[in-house]
C-alpha cells in the first residue's frame, strides 16, 4: 500500500486551493501562510513548496503582493492577496470541489447500499 504517494499527490493538487482559501479571508505574508498550514498536518508544507507556488500564482495573475518593511526590528514581509481573477478562480475551484465531494459521497453511499443488499 503506497498511501504516502497518494497523500503527496493530494497535497500537490489541493495546496493551491488551500492557500487561495486562506488568502480570501485575509492578506497574509509568506511565513504566516506556512505557519497556518502547519496547523493542519495533512497539508503542512515548507518554503520550497509554498514560495514557488505563490510566485507562480502571482505570475498567472491570481495573486498580488506588496513588500512591507515592518517596524520594531521585525523582518520585511511580503504580503499576498487575491486579485479579482484570483477570486473568480477560487469561486470556480469551490464549484469543482463541491462536485468532487458530491461524487465521492455518492459513490460511498452506493457502496454501503450494495453491501447492505448483499448481506
Amino acid at each position, binding site marked *: 500500500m503506497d498511501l504516502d504517494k497518494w497523500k503527496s499527490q493530494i497535497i500537490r493538487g489541493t495546496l493551491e486551493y488551500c492557500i487561495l482559501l486562506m488568502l480570501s479571508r485575509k492578506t497574509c505574508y509568506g511565513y504566516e501562510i506556512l505557519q497556518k498550514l502547519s496547523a493542519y498536518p495533512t497539508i503542512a508544507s515548507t518554503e520550497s513548496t509554498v*514560495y514557488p507556488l505563490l510566485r507562480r500564482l502571482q505570475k498567472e495573475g491570481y495573486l498580488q503582493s506588496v*513588500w512591507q518593511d515592518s517596524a520594531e526590528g521585525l523582518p520585511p514581509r511580503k504580503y499576498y492577496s487575491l486579485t479579482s481573477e484570483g477570486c473568480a478562480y477560487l469561486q470556480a475551484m469551490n464549484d469543482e470541489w463541491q462536485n468532487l465531494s458530491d461524487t465521492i459521497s455518492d459513490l460511498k453511499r452506493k457502496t454501503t447500499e450494495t453491501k447492505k443488499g448483499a448481506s
Partner: protein
Amino acid sequence: MNAAFETYLNTIDKHLRPLPASERADIIKEIKSSILEMESEQLPEAQILERLGAPKELAKAYLGDFIAKGNDFSLNRFLTVFAFYSLTGFSGMFIVPILGITAPMFLLCGAIAPAAGLVKFIGSLFGYDVPFVVAQFGTMTLSPAFTFLYSVVMGAVLLLLGRGAWKLLLRYICTISQTKKKLAA
C-alpha cells in the same frame, strides 16, 4: 543573520542564475525574511537550515516552472527543433522547387492546349491543315474536330493538375509555418 545563512542565500542565488536579476533578488529577500522570522522565534540555526532544505533543491523548486516554460536549454526541445529543421530543409529542397515549377507549367499548358486545338480546328474549316498541332495515338491521327475536343479535355485535366499542385504547395508552406510557430511558443 549569521554567516551560515549568508552562505546559504549566496548558494541559492548562484543556482538561480537563469532567472532575471530582479526576480532573483525578490526570491532571496523572501527566503531571508523567512529565516529572520524563524530566528525571532528562537529556532536554532540547524533546525532552520534543515527545514529550508539543501540550497540547490530550494533553488530548483523555483526554477521548475521556469524550465518547463522552455526558456532554458533542454535536450528534448533541442531534438524536436533539430528534427523539424532537418526534415523541413530536406523535404523543402525537393517539394518547393518541384511544385513551384510544375504548378505554373501545368496551368500554362492547360491554357495553351485548347488554344492550339482551336487554331487547328478553325484552320481546317478554311481548308488549311496546321502542321504543328497534331493529336496522335500510335499510327492513328485524330481529325481536326476530334483534336480540338481532345485538346479541351486535356487542357482541363492539366488545369486541374496545376491547381492541385499549387494548393499542395500552399498547404505545405502553411503546415511548416504553423509547426514553426508551435515550436517557438
